[in-house]
């Protein structure tokens, strides 16, 4: 125990000093905190190592506590690249002229939100959200983060479509769990009766055997929409040399390490443009998140 403690102390002090010698030319990226932190750190430390090898510069990942913090760090040029959700990407690119969506996951072309319910509610799966209107009304409901696409924007849009009312008026209690994993845990535990989350998180947790299927089930799936993407600032070439942006893009598209892809979870990355996210922008404007 004691030696392990000393070892950790030495490692942490080394980390501390190595952090202070990092130069200004470190390429820094972040990601929206949409899942448990341990998973994010593991995943993006892998990406940082991979990019550092491919790009031949120091690459550093910094974890943040909120979607807005990721957008702000990107906008303030404290990070140059970010793994955004559909909505956070649109918000960030609106704030940083010249920034570009580089690549999205194969699955992000047609992403979905799953509405899930605790089985104690007795709600059965349906094809249309409107069919569940009577059963959903008056229940408690949780979104994910306030800035999430699949955890907030799309579910709120569909709730407004189906009920013609704001979520606060439909449900007896509306909460924001913080992220998708937590939405799953809260609905599974019955803290909230119904919730909405990212379908990839659901599938991955299901494959890993982390879902108690007697306690929680999917009751509705949204139509597909574009979601997560890597977005880069427009001024990276000035700072890291000509063609740097293209190099980053190629590195992301060439990411084939199955373990790393599995951690996202995505089967690979494909090119994408800013225009692909027009539907997200329109939806966000419609429900008043973007002005």
């Amino acid at each position, binding site marked *: 125990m004691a030696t*392990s403690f000393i070892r950790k102390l030495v490692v942490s002090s080394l980390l501390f000093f190595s952090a202070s010698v990092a130069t200004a030319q470190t390429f820094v990226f972040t990601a929206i905190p949409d899942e448990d932190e*341990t998973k994010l750190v593991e995943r993006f430390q892998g990406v940082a190592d991979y990019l550092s090898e491919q790009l031949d510069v120091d690459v550093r990942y910094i974890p943040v*506590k*909120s979607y*807005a*913090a990721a957008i702000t760090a990107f906008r303030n040029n404290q990070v140059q690249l970010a793994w955004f959700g559909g909505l956070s990407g649109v918000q960030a690119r609106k*704030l940083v002229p010249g920034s570009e969506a580089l690549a999205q996951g194969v699955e992000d072309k047609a992403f979905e939100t799953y509405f899930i319910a605790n089985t104690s509610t007795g709600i059965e799966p349906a094809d249309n959200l409107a069919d569940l209107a009577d059963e959903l009304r008056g229940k408690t409901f949780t979104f994910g983060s306030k*800035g999430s696409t699949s955890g907030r924007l799309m579910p709120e849009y569909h709730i407004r479509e189906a009920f013609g009312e704001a979520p606060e008026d439909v449900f007896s209690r509306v*909460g924001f769990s913080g992220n998708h994993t937590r939405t799953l845990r809260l609905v599974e535990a*019955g803290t909230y009766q119904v919730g909405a989350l990212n379908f990839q998180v659901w599938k991955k947790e299901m494959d890993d055997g982390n879902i108690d299927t007697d306690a929680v089930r999917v009751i509705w799936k949204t139509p597909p929409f574009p979601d997560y993407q890597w977005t880069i600032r427009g001024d990276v070439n000035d700072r890291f040399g000509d063609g740097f942006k293209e190099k980053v893009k190629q590195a992301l598209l060439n990411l084939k390490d199955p373990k790393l892809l599995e951690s996202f979870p995505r089967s690979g990355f494909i090119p994408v443009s800013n225009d692909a996210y027009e539907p997200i922008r329109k939806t966000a404007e419609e429900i008043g998140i973007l002005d």
Partner: protein
Amino acid sequence: MFSYPTVRTSLIFVAIALVSLLFSDIAITSSNPWQDLGNFFLGVVTPNFFSSEGLMTALLRTVAFAFVGVAVGSASGFLLALVYRFLPVRIFCNFIRAIHELFWALIFLQFFGFHPLTGVLAIAIPYAGIFAKVYSEILDEADPEPRNLLPPGTGVISAFLFARIPDCWHQIRTYTAYRLECGLRSSAILGFVGLPTLGFYLEASFSQGLYSDAGAMLILFYVLIATIPIWVRPKLLPIYVLSAPFFLGEGLPIVWGNVARFFTQDIVPAPLRNGEGLAGLGPWLNDLMVNAALPGIWNTVILTQIALVATGILALLAFPLVSNHFGGPIRRTFGHVFLVIARSTPEYVLAYILLQLWGPSMLPAVVALALHNGGIIGHLIGRQTNSIRLRPDAPKGFNRYTWELTPRVYRSFLAFLFYRWEIIMRETAILGILGIYTLGFYVDSAIQNIHFDRALVLILITALLNIGIDTLGRYIRRKLALQTMPTC
């Protein structure tokens, strides 16, 4: 009994709290809260100190941010205290301390980002306002006699240093030391918004249900605070203060253009920024008031009033735990441990823990506020009863509590309670960030939607509300002729 103004005031506040309860949202919504609570306590008794390599660094950063923040705050507060008699200075100080550390952090994060300056200023600014007020009160109470005895022609600075400071030095030191303890709490919770202090890891472990990891962090934090008298020595202080800035971590470099952008664009109300002119300002403000400010104010006030009375009840129940007039030394030791834990845990952390365990409602917030503030007041009046000497034939047990001691300490109890009224409201507003619908919830929502203009207006409203409650609290204390204590 009902003719006593203190009793009448108390009953009015209890009545307000009861009415507030009718409008409040008090519930346990998780399906097996006791099992979760059990798991949490199991985690605390089986702490895992080796979970994260970052834990020791986080502890170091927590201490470093507290030292630098409190040092800067205390130095600026002292300078402000010298000119505190001027109304504009008083207004300025009231204003900066009416804004919570976490709100300051959220503001600085927008343009300094993850630079150490964000954390330092978030602590230093509100603390400067508090220091200015308390230091000036201490200086005012200094004995004027030594100054009157000085020979004519003594310089102002010499007179101040040699005739005024020595008389207040002890009090200034005691208060600054107390603030350092508060600084450690503030520093720890800054982690919840992303600074590299303890809260960062606490939030991460808690949200994943890693209770043993979270337990270890809490235990380390209690040990850190409980051992302050051992490791904070007057002789070591200069070393701590001078070396602390080197342990803040490097963060990310500041881009100064962001600062200009924040003040010239981000916080300018949207209609003005988009060239709609003053005509657009009305509807914008109206929307903000109806959909965010008013519901936020309503919930903040309701929750504050319930928490205030709950704090009072808890303090009155808790003070016998540490009073010499009840029980033996063993029970008192347990009493002390309980109250130390209650008051060392920041309300924000307590509320966060209870929200995870009981599900979202106002209940976790009320319990957290009552535990923390009731712990502080219970400790203070418990200590006060120790200086009371009872007659040998004084009643014992329950009668001693109800008819002897409580009436004797009731006035100072009320003084402490009304002093903390404003503090409770400030915390209530901030707990909104955790998802309770107080003002903090709407501030956080505005920031999450990148509407800094809206966020700033809401923060200003929160500050004004705090200043209002502070003024009201002072008025009531004056009306009831309650002695105020600066160190509470």
